[in-house]
């Protein structure tokens, strides 16, 4: 056909198609078109109907499946300062590439994780950011490190991680032909890395050999923290039909609770570690060889008991690598000893060496019920170690009797229901059928309730908690989650009735939520009052459980702990009186516990810690005598404990805690030499601890705290010259810690305090420009904190106190107008705070200081009347404090000083 013919055809075609179908034939006959063209037209018209769908879908849509397959070709692209070399793997929301720096800053190859462009939404960016934070918090030799993070030119976030050039742990073991002990050692190192992550509240959720690479030097490295977390999240949200869409992600390493889409906990990681160990020992995964279908594996993981690794070695190993040896004839056992030869060196692993302990250990990690597994990766590792040392392991075979007793222990209600069914059957009465049905329903109810609580508690402890802790800008969402959870718990608690076990579970859940809301160590949520409410609900439940059986030590201990935590939170929230009451309640219980269990060092130690923390209140409120009584009691206990176990880490911590607060108390009554000796002792002990635990944040912080309190002693002593040397270095630790973890409210607070203390010693030493510089630093850190949680009174009070320091320096520099402005802000802040909490005498003291300094400023500005008015206010407050016996020893002469100042001001009036 030619172009001109086609032109004719399409013209006629247009006319024909415009006509109703039954008229077309006639039209063509009458139009007189050439028969050849007419045939062509008729052949085309036939497809009018059929072709209507043609290209309804665009080419892009039509081809996206195979374009998607080719999408890995980002290689060569430049992202920030990196060039992508090749794809290493793809996850749910991002892909990981091998990349290198293009700016030549360093030569290192990195693993660069990129958020997919279509995933670049605010919510996912937050997740990505969260992953970055998680990685930043996980500095461990066996976890791939975070190196860098940023965004590409087109605003796609990336994370650069340590690139681990190595083999998956299973391939490594086989290719190097590692023997059994070497495998176990390697695996234990992996456990320690997982345990470290758990202690940092991070769950991996996707542990499998390809996420544990072993370098050429034999160092295992854990990879893929965030991806796994996000993958499992998507997984949890997806409906069951999409299992196969997960594609490469085999469920083989996922725990039953993960596959059931229930709460994932650290125990899920323990399960996955169990699968990895199973594979390292037997060369197989527990459910894989008989079930080839994904869905069947899925079902097996949930329902079937796993075989033992040694039996897999016996039956399922690939023929090429297995040699069956006859059992030694003298052995009574008839089971054959199967040997797996693996690797170039043909190292052998025999089923005999695995049978028994190692079987039991693996199977304990693989229990369906999370609470029956090892309680931590560390415990799993310890049990392996015990096996290697020839000691008795804790893992036991899974017997029916054990299962039954466990079931009854956990489900008292259900056990009763089961008993009813049992009686009905034994009685052989047909009419009891309905009874059985009722019982079954009852049991189902009880189980559901129980499981709901457990699930919720677990998910709060391990899922919500770490996320809430670090996620910024999600306050509203967090609150909503908490409110929903609380409603849920409240309704369950109404149902709990007389079920003590359930009440206790519930109390734990409330306490965990309370921790989240009002956490002492991280007040980022700043919802202390809500936290106290949750502790209160838990306390009522615990009180009921305790009242039901006052001889039960465990419930007594838990109630004491509840009161103790409540007391500390109240004190943190400046509710001094309530805090003291709660401490008293806890103290009563703890004293009883310690008395009834004189041999339990744990109970003794807890009592000591309680006495020390309780004593801090009178120390800070200048009631040193009261504090010293408590400390004496604590000191006696600590002395006994350290004598009994001189190397106990916990006892040493208690000891430094006591030395520190006692030194503080001594300083406040003017016994500086005694205080300095105490600090020196505390520093000596904690230095040793710090060297033993170089990566333990709490130990390092405890060293800082001691130094910081020593610095404050010099301030109390008004020894500026020696104080600078003691104070200036205290800013270093919190500064470094804050750089590592910018969200950490505790270290930010520490940093502000350190700068403030340094400002004070500079002032005492007469260096006012440095005073101002340090006070400004303190203010900038503290106001960032205060902005995050505007209702935290302590932060506000701190800001006011730093301002007082600035005002003092300004007065010394004779910049009175500036000092006046600063002091006005101070008083505007502090007066309402002091009025709201009259029991905290330091607030009153701050207000009096504000008035006193204002008086000095007014006097120097020539506003004598105002000066007298201000000094009168200061005097009134100090008088009241003096009557309450709430003035520090160093302020003995304060009232006289103030009167003298007033005299000066009055004298000036007279002269004028």
């Amino acid at each position, binding site marked *: 056909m030619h*172009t001109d013919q086609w032109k004719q055809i399409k013209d006629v075609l247009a006319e024909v198609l415009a006509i109703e179908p039954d008229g077309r034939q006639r039209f063509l006959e009458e139009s007189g078109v050439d028969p050849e063209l007419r045939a062509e037209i008729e052949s085309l018209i036939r497809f009018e109907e059929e072709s209507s769908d043609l290209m309804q879908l665009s080419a892009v849509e039509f081809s996206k499946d195979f374009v998607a397959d080719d999408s890995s070709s980002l290689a060569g692209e430049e992202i920030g300062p990196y060039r992508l070399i090749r794809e290493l793997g793809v996850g749910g929301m991002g892909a990981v590439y091998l990349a290198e720096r293009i700016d030549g800053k360093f030569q290192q190859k990195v693993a660069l994780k990129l958020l997919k462009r279509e995933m670049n939404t605010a919510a996912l960016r937050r997740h990505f950011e969260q992953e970055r934070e998680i990685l930043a918090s996980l500095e461990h030799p066996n976890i791939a490190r975070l190196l860098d993070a940023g965004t590409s030119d087109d605003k796609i976030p990336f994370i650069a991680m340590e690139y681990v050039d190595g083999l998956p742990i299973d391939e490594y073991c086989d290719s190097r032909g590692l023997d059994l002990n070497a495998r176990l050692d390697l695996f234990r190192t992996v456990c320690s890395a997982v345990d470290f992550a758990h202690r940092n509240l991070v769950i991996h959720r996707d542990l499998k050999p390809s996420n544990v690479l072993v370098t050429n030097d034999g160092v295992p490295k854990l990879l893929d923290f965030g991806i796994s977390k996000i993958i499992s999240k998507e997984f949890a949200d997806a409906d069951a039909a999409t299992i196969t869409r997960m594609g490469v992600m085999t469920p083989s390493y996922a725990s039953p609770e993960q596959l059931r889409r229930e709460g994932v906990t650290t125990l899920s990681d323990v399960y996955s570690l169990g699968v990895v160990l199973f594979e390292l020992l037997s060369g197989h995964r527990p459910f894989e060889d008989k079930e080839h279908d994904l869905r069947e594996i899925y079902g097996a993981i949930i329902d079937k008991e796993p075989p033992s690794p040694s039996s897999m070695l016996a039956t399922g190993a690939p023929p090429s690598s297995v040699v069956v040896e006859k059992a030694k004839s003298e052995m009574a056992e008839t089971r054959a000893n199967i040997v797996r030869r693996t690797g170039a060196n043909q190292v052998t692993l025999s089923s005999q060496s695995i049978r028994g302990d190692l079987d039991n250990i693996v199977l304990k990690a693989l229990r369906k019920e999370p609470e029956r597994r090892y309680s931590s990766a560390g415990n799993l590792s310890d049990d392996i170690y015990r096996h290697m040392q020839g000691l008795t392991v804790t893992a036991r075979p899974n017997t029916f009797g054990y299962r039954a007793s466990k079931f009854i222990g956990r489900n008292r209600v259900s056990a009763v229901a089961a008993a009813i069914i049992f009686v009905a059957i034994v009685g052989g009465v047909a009419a009891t059928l309905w009874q059985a049905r009722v019982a079954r329903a009852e049991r189902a109810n009880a189980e559901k309730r129980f499981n709901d609580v457990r699930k919720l508690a677990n998910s709060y402890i391990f899922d919500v908690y770490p996320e809430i802790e670090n996620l910024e800008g999600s306050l509203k969402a967090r609150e909503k989650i908490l409110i929903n959870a609380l409603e849920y718990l409240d309704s369950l608690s109404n149902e709990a009735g007389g079920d003590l076990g359930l009440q206790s579970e519930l109390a734990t859940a409330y306490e965990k939520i309370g921790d989240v809301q009002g956490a002492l160590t991280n007040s980022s949520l700043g919802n202390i009052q809500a936290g106290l409410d949750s502790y209160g609900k838990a306390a009522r439940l615990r009180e009921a459980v305790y009242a039901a059986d006052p001889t039960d030590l465990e419930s007594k201990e838990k109630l004491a702990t509840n009161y103790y935590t409540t007391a500390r939170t109240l004190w943190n929230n400046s509710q001094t009186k309530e805090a003291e009451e709660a401490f008293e309640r806890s103290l009563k219980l703890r004293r009883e516990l310690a008395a009834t269990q004189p041999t339990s060092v744990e109970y003794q130690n807890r009592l000591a810690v309680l006495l020390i923390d309780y004593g801090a209140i009178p120390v800070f409120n200048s009631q040193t005598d009261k504090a010293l009584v408590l400390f004496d009691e604590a000191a006696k206990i600590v002395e006994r404990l350290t004598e009994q176990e001189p190397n106990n880490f916990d006892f040493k911590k208690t000891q430094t805690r006591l030395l520190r607060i006692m030194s503080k108390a001594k300083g406040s009554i003017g016994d500086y030499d005694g205080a300095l000796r105490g600090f020196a002792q505390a520093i000596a002990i904690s230095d040793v601890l710090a060297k033993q635990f170089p990566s333990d944040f709490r130990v390092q912080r405890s060293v800082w705290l001691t130094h910081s309190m020593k610095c404050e002693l010099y301030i109390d002593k008004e020894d500026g010259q020696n104080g600078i040397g003691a104070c200036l270095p205290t800013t270093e630790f919190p500064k470094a810690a804050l750089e590592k973890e910018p969200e950490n409210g505790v270290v930010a607070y520490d940093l502000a305090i350190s700068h403030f203390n340094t400002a004070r010693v500079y002032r005492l030493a007469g260096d006012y420009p440095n005073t101002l510089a340090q006070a400004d630093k303190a203010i900038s850190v503290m106001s960032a904190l205060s902005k995050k949680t505007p209702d935290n009174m302590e932060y506000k009070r701190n800001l006011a106190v730093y301002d007082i320091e600035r005002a003092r320096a300004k007065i010394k520099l004779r910049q009175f107008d500036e000092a006046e402005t600063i002091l006005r802000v101070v008083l505007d802040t502090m007066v309402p705070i002091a009025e709201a909490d009259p029991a905290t005498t330091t607030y009153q003291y701050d207000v009096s200081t504000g008035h006193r300094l204002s008086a000095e400023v007014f006097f120097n500005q020539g506003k004598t009347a105002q000066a007298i008015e201000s000094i009168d206010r200061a005097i009134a407050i100090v008088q009241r404090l003096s009557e309450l016996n709430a003035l520090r020893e160093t302020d003995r002469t304060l009232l006289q000083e103030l009167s003298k100042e007033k005299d000066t001001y009055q004298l000036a009036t007279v002269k004028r």
Partner: protein
Amino acid sequence: MSEKQVSEITRILKDWNGGNEEAREELLPFVYEELKRQARYLMSGERKNHTLQPTALVHEAFLRISQQTGIDWQNRSHFYGIASRLMRQILIDHARLHATAKRGNRPIHFSLDDVQISVEDRADSLLVLNDVLDRLEKLDEQQAKIVEMRFFGGMNNGEIAENLGISERTVGREWLAARLWLYRELNTV
């Protein structure tokens, strides 16, 4: 896009807006790269259950180039026309990677509700369409362009009309004829 590329594109666009039609050809590689990028991002992975509109893809590329160069295209449908051509090239390149040697022995799929069609069949079908479209181009260049803009560029009749400087009604009529012809050719190979 690197800074160098951005300034290069800016220059070309200025030339083109200034009436230099040859500048358009210079632009092609950049637009091609950008589209390929968009295709890769937008078409990869997780989106298999979403309907992906080529206009979204082309528009994204358009926005990126105009934003980065700060130049307003005199005629957006020009860009879309170019993009349609380039999209065809890109998708055919991809299809070649996945096609089988047995092309022609399989049914051709273009009534595309059927999600069961394998990747290979889709790739084969697309290559057959490409050949048929080449033949149409020889027969009726304008019609081939219309099909290209519609199928590969996701343009609607209005945009196609604007690009070709003809009426929307003509576009409709030409498309209908092309549709019948293509369908017959595709199904009687």
